[in-house]
């Protein structure tokens, strides 16, 4: 309790932004990848993949939010979120370019 109760203002703000904003960014990136990859890898129709990815995203975001507040090391939290965000959005945009015949 002490460790977190004594959180200073700046690390707290960083954690809040990382959890709420970063967690959302990563979830949205993963949604985009899943919505693109599922129809390509399985026989699932495109519209179905979009809905499935979006519904699961709420649970992914929930897990990320919980973890963001449970992770003691703030740097690790930020590094992982930035890495996951870059990877998922990079993959999504790459897939979009691939699909449009680039």
């Amino acid at each position, binding site marked *: *309790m002490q*460790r*977190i*109760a004594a959180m200073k203002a700046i690390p707290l703000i960083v954690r809040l932004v990382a959890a*709420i904003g970063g967690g959302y960014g990563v*979830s*949205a*990136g993963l*949604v*985009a990848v*899943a*919505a*693109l990859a599922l*129809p390509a890898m399985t026989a*699932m*129709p*495109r*519209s*179905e*993949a*979009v*809905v*499935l*990815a*979006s*519904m699961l*995203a*709420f*649970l992914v*975001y*929930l897990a990320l*939010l*919980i973890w963001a*507040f*449970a992770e*003691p090391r703030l740097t690790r939290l930020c590094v992982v979120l930035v890495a996951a965000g870059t990877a998922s959005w990079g993959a*999504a*945009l790459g*897939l*979009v370019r691939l699909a449009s015949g680039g």
Partner: protein
Amino acid sequence: MEQGFRASMNWLHTWSGVVLGGLLFAIFWMGTLSVFDREIDRWMAPMIRLPAAEKTFSLEVLRPLYEAAAAAKSPFFSVGLPTDRDAAIRVLWREPSGPVHRFIDPGTGVMLPDPGTLAGTRFIFPFHYMLHIRFQDIGLWLVGLAGMAMMVLCVSGVIIHRKIFTDFFTFRPEKKPRRLILDLHNVTGVLGLPFHFLISLSGLVIFWATYFPSSWQVTYNGDRLAFFADAYGNVIPKGRSGEPGGMASFDAMAAEARRLWDGSALRYVFVRNPGDAKSVMQIGRLDEGIVSSTYDAAYFDGPTGALISYRNGTAPVMSTQRFLSGLHFIQFHHWSLRWIYFVLGLAGCVLIATGYLFWLESRRKKHAQLGLKGVRIVEGLAVGSVTGMLIATGAFFVVNRLLPLGASAWGQDRAALEVWTFYLVWLATFAQAWARPQRAWMGQCWTVAALASAAVLLNWITTGDQLLRSLSHRHLWPIAGMDILLLAGAAFAAVAALRLSRLSRIGRVRHA
């Protein structure tokens, strides 16, 4: 690590609860009332307290209103057809001056006078999912944030609860207030957990396309309409042609739609581009016999009345989404479930309110000793969000029965005056709670009791539908139900106020 994890979850539970509790209470309270939104409509708009609609009536009674909408170049003409809970036809279109909402008696085809209220379906229900903040969808996003927070609170609450199974049934009303409040918070939280988690998740899932737009943006090149056309089979004309066009027989198209779905009843009629050569008529299916909220619709070319396409059933994932939406919307015909939802919704309100109270009770002494202002600020927030919300709702009902039809003041029409009353009264409850925190809970409980009883009395005086009369007529049962709940609420608030005044007297004796 285990200790650290639990401690961080405790921190998360405490502070997300304190910061978002007010918002969550408002959403839960309005959602609980929305369970009976159409019944509230009947109570607040007495002109629609009609006997159940005749099974067959001609949709042609809508033609004059349709012509009015076409003349006003309204982008749409929307008709809600009567159901078991709703005896009147609801019509909505847009005039240059603003939206027009009217009821029609299906028995006679007569347009009923302007109800002058947004009532349950147009004030309480939208408040529940978007707080009436339309700008940039901020309201919708705030509710989404609160929904995520509710799930976080559910999970973290389970993690920090040390004796979840031993305390499963434990509520000790004879204990000290702090223990009693925690017991009540734990019991409603743990037992209500499946409902609260599912209702938050399903609420979020309804708006998945708004909350996670990245999914359809990357797959459909950012074209929302293309996605909806693919997923739901929507037929949406691209703009108006500018040429005037007629409208084929409503009844013929409705009969065709019914035939497509094996005689199923219809829920709505929606015309895009009324009066234009490129108008499209959409007719929706009513299926009250299943949990899912169906997207089944038939599309007709307006001027010719020819069927463009129709939809019957959905793919597996979409069916799951429709099931989750349906269990949240409860538009199905199941009165037992409707009442259970109401009770469990109230349990959610109790859960949030006791969460606040526990925070306050466990810090009151310490903050007083240290001279901190936290308790005072949060207490004002808690009073205003809990009893203040109840008072504002009560005032909304009371002013609805006090204002005559067609009333207006300061350039605001009757419906706007009701809404202004709601917000101003709500604001006043916060002001009172911050100004006089000692007596705020008790005083506001008395106000709730007074407003709820006044609402019942005013309903009797202005409409003559007192409890005995409304109980003896089937079509007035919704009125009876609302009056009984108001009286029960008044009694409950009065008992709470009496208890609080006794507690404060004991407190004063002890201090003396």
